[in-house]
């Protein structure tokens, strides 16, 4: 007896649907393989992995959470950029506007702030997990080095974002922070000048931190993450007992 065509069948059988999704429902191994291989976002994964690599108590999802928070930060960050003005005169007022008159502005800002703190913690804990499971050992040496660079970029992303609210907390935290950098032997003054663009934190520092925060460092992080994720696969997937 032939089954009656449901609405779902009509949709998934239509020319439009089939032009987008080139495989059937993933309930066979063939379609499960195709869905991973033919989707640009999913093809970061191989089609099959070792069973132990799916164990939550091995990775605690920390690397994935770091990436997830990077995505949340990118999305909320773009929304905040619609309203934030990187000018020493207007920045603080635009923060006030985001908090009081932008729909969901306060929520977006809170999510951005808390996931930024969360990302620093997750990246650090991820490093600890990778270390304590010995996952840096050959052939994964270089990916560990990339990971250390990503830790540094994460610190810098958080630090450059710290100045943007242009409140007392921001100004003085960054003053202390850049003073630490300025204490570098031999090149301290130059480092400080490059960071601040002036003798004290002002408009030039704000625009530098803003540009680093919204363009340069996220691109650097994305670039390093691409290498990091690619190398996981090339080095044989995530580590496991030999």
């Amino acid at each position, binding site marked *: 007896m032939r089954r009656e065509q449901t609405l779902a069948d009509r949709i998934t059988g239509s020319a439009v649907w089939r032009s987008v999704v080139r495989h059937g429902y993933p309930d066979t191994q063939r379609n499960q393989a195709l869905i991973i291989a033919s989707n640009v976002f999913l093809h970061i994964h191989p089609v099959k992995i070792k069973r132990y690599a799916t164990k*939550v108590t091995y990775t605690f999802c920390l690397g994935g959470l770091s990436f997830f928070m990077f995505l949340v930060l990118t999305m909320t960050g773009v929304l905040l950029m619609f309203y934030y003005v990187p000018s020493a005169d207007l920045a603080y007022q635009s923060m006030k506007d985001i908090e009081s008159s932008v729909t969901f502005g306060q929520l977006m800002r809170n999510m951005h702030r808390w996931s930024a703190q969360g990302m620093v913690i997750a990246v650090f804990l991820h490093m600890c997990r990778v270390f304590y*499971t010995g996952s840096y050992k050959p052939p994964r040496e270089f990916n560990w080095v990339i990971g250390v660079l990503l830790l540094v970029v994460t610190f810098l992303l958080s630090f450059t974002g710290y100045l943007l609210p242009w409140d*007392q907390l921001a100004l003085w935290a960054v003053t202390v922070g850049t*003073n630490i950098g300025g*204490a570098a032997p031999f090149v301290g003054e130059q480092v400080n000048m490059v960071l601040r663009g002036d003798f004290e934190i002002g408009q030039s520092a704000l625009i530098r931190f803003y540009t680093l925060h919204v363009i340069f460092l996220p691109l650097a992080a994305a670039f390093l993450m691409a290498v990091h994720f690619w190398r996981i696969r090339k080095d044989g997937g995530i580590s496991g007992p030999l």
Partner: protein
Amino acid sequence: MAEIAQQTPGGQGFTPIDEAKRQRLLELVRGRAMARPTDLAEDEVMVWPSLVVVEAVSAAVFLLILTVLSVMVNAPLTARANPNQTPNPSKAPWYFLNLQELLLHMNAGVAGVIIPTVALVGIAAIPYIDRSPLGVGILGTSAKGRRIIGFTFVYTTVVIVGMILLNEQSGRTVFGLAGFLQENLNTPELINYQILPVLIIVFWIGVLMALVQRLYRPTRREMVIALFTGFVAAFVVLTISGTSFRGEGQDLTWPWNLPLEHH
């Protein structure tokens, strides 16, 4: 096993088994043979759905937690930036407060730049120092490795808390040694606040390595575990000290006496 032992070769009805010479299975010993069954490496699952489900669920759970947190707790926004009004204490973001804590005890260049640079380069160099495949995939490598983690954490915490308290007592003069050297030998700042603190840090790292060597007879991997754990413990202890125990003038105080402006 017993059946195998009882089997007679060729089935030609040879002499019955001599009970005294009979081999028995006493126990099974976990071997370290070169050719081990490759179950773990062969045991594969489809990424869709096995891994994708884990990712989707953890992303959803975490997004929920983050959203609830963001609805309930507002990000701090203090008064407008004012270069003429320095808050006391002024603090860096929390993840740099470990460096700010170090800064109280020695030269700023050493505490703020040289030590973190050496630490980061050292961490990046770990895979080129410890290359043996020993213990991959096992948290802490071995029971001994896990004991070393615990020991190092306690050791580092005690040493750092002790040093902070002692140096605070001496008015942050490298336990009074800096003043003593300067008065008696007229030593320059380079020795008092740069070389001397570094030597003290190197000394405590040396003591840690000697203790771990004596107590545990570690492999190279386990020694690296001790050093890395020392770094993590130092990072944590110094960060807690910097965030929660430094009040006005960066003097030691209790967390509940701190001004509320810092996040």
